[in-house]
């Protein structure tokens, strides 16, 4: 029985210690009692896996402007991004990067000592600031170091299970301490959700085991809608069968994509940008080659070829990739081409939030008091239907920072919520019920069925039949999930329980994604319907909002903010 629990009171509680969460913490902690809760140690967060870079029009290499960055982002989004939000992000970008540098981030350098910049897909100019192929890693460590400097309070290996909502306001949350299984409740004036993406809904994914859609589901269950969930980015270069990412930087440095006939097939699909076309286009091109029998030996993979770059360049610019490919596949990319396939990568949709990271609940953008969101979990929406590479580190840091500032302001006018015994009771009961499930079903097997179904039916190419079948399947699997059996009844480091909770998030995440995809009868950005192959601005130039209800989820829409650029056909 789950009886022991502790209570904590803070001005601000941040869920997630990735780039978004820690950047927010740095901004707000000097002004407010702040706690950062994370299910992994801060430096283990998935932001550390980002290799390629962070976009900012510094103009250190090419002449560049934020206006051009704005246009590239909006065009990349297939015109679904809110242009006011995208503008804020690209205008903040230079300062955001310079601040990171001032905190010590070891960016790679130009001969004159300024930050180096390289090409990245969909960006017109050399705009990606990077640190070899360890960009996210060095940024994450730098922010962690700064948090240590300022004595930020971390609750590491605490797993958030529920948001506390009262009269439409968020007043806190409950979290299990994984070390001893105790449930803690946190009450706060403001809560920030920065829990990353949900790539684990798919069988082939570039994301970490911990990327299980937690924040999406926490919000969804608390009555917050999820926005534009149908847009899932598939990255063109995942290691064959493993899904592990080879950075786009490898193509930025000049790598080729080669099909089974030895052709650089991107010539057919995006002659202007070749391998550096945006990800949705490149992934679809690969999948088309594979589907039409032009994979390597007719199989479901193609090659990423770096050999012509030469040993020196590979070892200097892409050292981690060289190591990773060798350790994972035994392939030496100096001498051999790398077998790759598209891999589930980034969740464009998420918790709707405004320019200050305040969560909104409807098409009028009505604010949910006390609740903020930033990073991959949020949908502000700067990426629209397709995110450009290097724009998500920027999104995480830029809006983490803005949300931090906004929370610092918000708490001065907000009252401390009272303890709510009822909320505590509900979360205790919920967890107890979960732990006591002693049925026949296995979590791992249900999760695998979900992941395979999502990959095949809600992957790169979708249609109404596949999506309907997947929706029905999710519901069946979720029903069976009620009947899972947990074998481990102990409470310290019980990762069986954690994985079961994570699997339950994935059902909510997937349901919203599939339903959004089914209702969106057009093709836009990463969402490609073979039964509706054209973009349809008349009907679908709008954001999807999906609400959890007791029965069928409710689908609503909200308008896209268009300021500078009228939608055009997207060609590269």
């Amino acid at each position, binding site marked *: 029985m789950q009886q022991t629990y502790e209570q904590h009171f803070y001005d601000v509680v941040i869920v997630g210690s990735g780039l978004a969460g820690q950047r927010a913490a740095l901004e707000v902690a000097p002004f407010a009692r702040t706690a950062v809760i994370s299910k992994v140690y801060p430096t283990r967060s998935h932001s550390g*896996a980002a290799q390629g870079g962070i976009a900012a029009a510094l103009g250190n290499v090419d002449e560049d402007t934020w206006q051009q960055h704005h246009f590239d982002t909006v065009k990349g989004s297939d015109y679904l991004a809110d242009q006011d939000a995208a503008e804020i992000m690209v205008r903040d970008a230079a300062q955001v990067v310079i601040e990171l540098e001032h905190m010590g981030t070891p960016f790679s350098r130009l001969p004159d000592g300024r930050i180096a910049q390289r090409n990245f897909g969909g960006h017109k100019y050399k705009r990606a600031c990077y640190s*070899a192929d360890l960009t996210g890693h060095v940024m994450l460590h730098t922010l962690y170091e700064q948090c240590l400097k300022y004595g930020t309070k971390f609750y590491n290996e605490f797993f958030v299970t529920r948001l506390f909502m009262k009269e439409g306001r968020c007043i806190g949350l409950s979290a299990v301490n994984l070390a001893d299984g105790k449930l803690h409740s946190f009450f706060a004036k403001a809560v920030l959700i920065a829990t990353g993406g949900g790539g684990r809904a798919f069988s082939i994914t570039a994301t970490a085991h911990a990327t299980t859609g937690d924040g999406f589901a926490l919000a969804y269950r608390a009555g917050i809608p999820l926005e534009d969930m149908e847009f899932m980015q598939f990255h063109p270069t995942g290691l064959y069968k493993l899904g592990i990412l080879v950075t786009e930087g490898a193509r930025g440095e000049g790598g080729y994509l080669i099909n089974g006939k030895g052709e650089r097939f991107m010539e057919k699909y995006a002659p202007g940008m070749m391998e550096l076309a945006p990800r949705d286009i490149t992934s679809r091109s690969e999948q088309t080659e594979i589907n039409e029998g032009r994979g390597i030996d007719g199989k479901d993979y193609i090659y990423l070829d770096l050999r012509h770059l030469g040993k020196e360049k590979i070892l200097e610019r892409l050292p981690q990739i060289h190591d990773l490919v060798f350790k994972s596949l035994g392939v030496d990319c100096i001498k051999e081409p790398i077998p790759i396939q598209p891999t589930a990568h980034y969740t464009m949709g998420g918790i709707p939030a405004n320019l200050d990271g305040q969560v909104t609940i409807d098409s009028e953008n009505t604010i949910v008091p006390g609740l903020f969101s930033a990073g991959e979990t949020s949908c502000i929406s700067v990426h629209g239907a397709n995110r450009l590479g290097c724009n998500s580190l920027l999104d995480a840091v830029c809006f983490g920072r803005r949300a931090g500032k906004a929370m610092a302001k918000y708490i001065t006018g907000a009252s401390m919520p009272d303890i709510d015994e009822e909320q505590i009771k509900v979360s205790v009961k919920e967890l107890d019920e979960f732990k006591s499930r002693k049925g026949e079903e296995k979590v791992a097997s249900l999760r695998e069925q979900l992941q395979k179904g999502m990959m095949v039916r809600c992957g790169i190419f979708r249609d109404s039949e596949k999506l309907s079948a997947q929706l029905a399947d999710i519901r069946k699997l979720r029903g069976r999930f009620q009947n899972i059996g947990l074998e481990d009844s102990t409470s*310290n480091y019980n990762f069986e329980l954690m994985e079961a909770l994570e699997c339950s998030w994935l059902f909510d995440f997937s349901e919203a994604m599939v339903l959004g995809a089914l209702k969106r009868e057009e093709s836009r950005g990463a969402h490609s319907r073979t039964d509706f192959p054209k973009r349809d601005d008349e009907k679908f130039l709008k954001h999807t909002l999906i609400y959890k209800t007791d029965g069928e989820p409710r689908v609503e829409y909200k308008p896209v903010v268009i300021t500078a650029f009228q939608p055009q056909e997207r060609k590269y």
Partner: protein
Amino acid sequence: MAERTFKIHRFNPEKDEKPYFQEYRFEVESGWSILDSLNHIKWNIDSSLNFRRSCRSGICGSCAMRVNGENALACETQVKNVKGSKIKIEPLPGLAVMRDLVVDMEPFFEGLKKVMPYFVTKDSPPDKEWLQSPEDRKKLDEPIKCILCACCTASCPSFWFDDKYVGPAALVKSYRFVFDSRDQAREERLDIVNDREGLWRCHTIFNCVEACPKDINCTQAIAELKKATVFSTV
């Protein structure tokens, strides 16, 4: 595909009086890492086995453990490269075992916190970036690869016998700032590590270099820090 036997350290302080080894034998698919094998056990054979993992690509530092007597990342260790009839998997040594392969990481992070593990500048920053030449930046190539996995510190006999010793990972972090041309707290940093529980606890036993999955030469970094302290006190 080949059958392999895994001999895995088990311990749950809630119910076991003492640790024991449990064996699992199963078909390992080609290309599987140690982590894939552990996941296979957890998902298909015995869900009570516990270990940390996240990125499965050698960057998050979660999955450090001892494989056939050597500290390594489970996700970066291919089963086919592990010799012997049985693959023995144990938690990292030198840190308290919390459960199965999960160790208490707090002493490791405490060591890190002691060395002023953050960038410091005293002049007010320029409008743009601090300049740094590619040559100066290159000096950081090795230490910034550190993923704080603790393979090194947990292999260090000096740390086993004295957990107040900050350990090689913390010293690598100190090195990362001492040799950063932009940093302005070199003297304080050297002062901190120039201590019995710092640099001088290291007896150049080289275990840490062997252990580091990111090929960081911890001992060299320590040697250079020692040199720097000697020169700065002259």
